[in-house]
């Protein structure tokens, strides 16, 4: 089976920063792999290591700069990646959930993914909605805030635990294909090894425009 992991380059503000007229100067902004997506990447890579996933593909929406973030996912074991961007997207102030879900769904369909893993939320905009909106658009089953995952590819289903309020857990079985939003703590994300970093340099990051994947923006 093929696993697609959505990865976001999330912005963080340096400890000391200055506010000018219309925001925070770019020099004070640092970008890194979104914390929740790090757990989703680890989940995908562990599925590959267990022989359950044949291929783990990463996808991100972002400018060329975001290659560095997705390269980190490649260094941790993701096989290859797709990066979606064009000038129209660059011109938008904030990408809303529905646009992101639209673009990610097009990639998921293009890749014919059996399982899509996404972080619960991004550490910068904290919408927490992209994964679920993506499932809706794809018409896939879904579970949000997943804290334990056991995929049975032959049976075409996955047993998941999802976090509820007040420390409660819901345990359920979800038919594949499905989208799961992965909660921190589900595993212990690995550090990128030097070997992984070296291998990642020759892994593919395919730049695509929305038009390439059949989305009109």
């Amino acid at each position: 089976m093929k696993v697609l992991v959505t990865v976001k380059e999330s912005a963080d503000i340096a400890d000391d920063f200055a506010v000018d007229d219309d925001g925070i100067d770019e020099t004070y902004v640092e970008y890194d792999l979104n914390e929740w997506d790090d757990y989703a990447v680890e989940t995908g890579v562990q599925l590959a290591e267990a022989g359950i996933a044949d291929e783990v593909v990463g996808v991100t929406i972002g400018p060329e700069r975001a290659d560095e973030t997705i390269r980190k996912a490649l260094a941790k074991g993701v096989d290859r990646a797709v990066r979606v961007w064009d000038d129209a997207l660059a011109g938008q102030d904030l990408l809303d959930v529905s646009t992101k879900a639209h673009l990610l769904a097009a990639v998921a369909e293009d890749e014919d993914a059996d399982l899509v893993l996404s972080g619960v939320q991004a550490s910068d905009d904290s919408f927490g909605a992209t994964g679920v909106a993506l499932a809706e658009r794809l018409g896939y089953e879904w579970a949000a805030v997943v804290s334990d995952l056991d995929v049975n590819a032959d049976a075409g289903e996955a047993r998941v635990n999802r976090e509820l309020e007040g420390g409660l857990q819901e345990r359920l079985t979800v038919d594949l294909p499905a989208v799961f939003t992965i909660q921190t703590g589900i595993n212990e994300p690995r550090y990128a090894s030097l070997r992984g970093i070296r291998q990642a340099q020759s892994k593919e990051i395919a730049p695509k425009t929305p038009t390439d994947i059949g989305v009109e923006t």
Partner: protein
Amino acid sequence: MLDYLGLGDDLTEEERMVRDTAREFLDEEIRPDIGEHFVEGTFPIEKIPEMGELGFYGPNLEGYGSLGLGERAYGLLMEELEACDSGMRSMASVQGALVMYPIHAYGNEEQKETWLPKLGSGEAVGCFGLTEPNHGSNPSEMETRAERDGDEYILNGNKTWITNSPIADVAVVWARDVSSEDSPVRGFLVETERDGVSTNEIKEKLSLRASITGGIALSDARIPAENVLPEVSGMKGPLSCLTQARYGIAWGAVGAAKDAFEQAVEYATDREQFGKPIAGFQMQQEKIAEMATRISLAELLAHRLAELKERGDLRPQQVSMAKRNNVRMARRVSRTAREMLGGNGITTDYSPMRHLANIETVYTYEGTHDIHSLVLGEDLTGIAAYK
């Protein structure tokens, strides 16, 4: 950390990723407890395999499980390790530059296949036996002897100041082969579990406390004749290893200094006396300006060495210049940083005094500061002062 000249902007993506992954690992796994290790005189031994899996040992070597990583990326790794503690960098230097390097450069196929993957992964720990109780700066006077006896060599002698000897599985021991003409210095792979080999730990150090140090005593230790490193004879063997390790030290010293600098600046901008941060006083600013300048110059030197090493033009004397300069720089910077922290600076809550104490070791190991002066003196005048 300080990057006043923007050298980080010119790194390749791979180099940045190596630096960042090392920093992330150290921040999360080592830094929180390093002060305690220093106080207790212990090394985070349980992290040795994880550091191996991450590729911290000999990544710049080619093949046999190693990665063929570029020399600048390797240097940045050493800088990050020593920014944490000189003991961390020493571990990686010994394993990679002093044990894996000679096996890689001078070993036969079987020795390489037996040892390099295990040492690289941290499954096995190695140590390097050159210095003896009576022979430090002049190791060619070594007393340790290897005598051929049938298919074996019999080793006798004492080695000391050996990083990791008490936890090592194998020692690269340099000894005079008295069975050969002119008794050349040869390298021997000595498994520490063999009869006649013992390793004592040197405790009560006041420096490099988060690092395990010991001796190697060889008393009629018998090793198979095939354990000799076949491809090298003479002092070139151990000296070429030291050039590799000193390259890492030149980078590492920059890391230790930067870490001390960062703590001093952070402290000085927070700490208020006479109604303003002490960083607002001219005497503190002069110290900060001086530290930043010295660090940046040393960093340039390290980056230049990387270029020369990458293209195969690096001379040992150039490494001596960088080791000598950069360690002296780190010694001065960590002392100044400690001073700016006042009384707080003498505790393990802050890194400068730990770095300062560590650098005292680094200043005189791998060729003392003074010996490197003489190496440069000979290179520049053609007259050897120590002969």
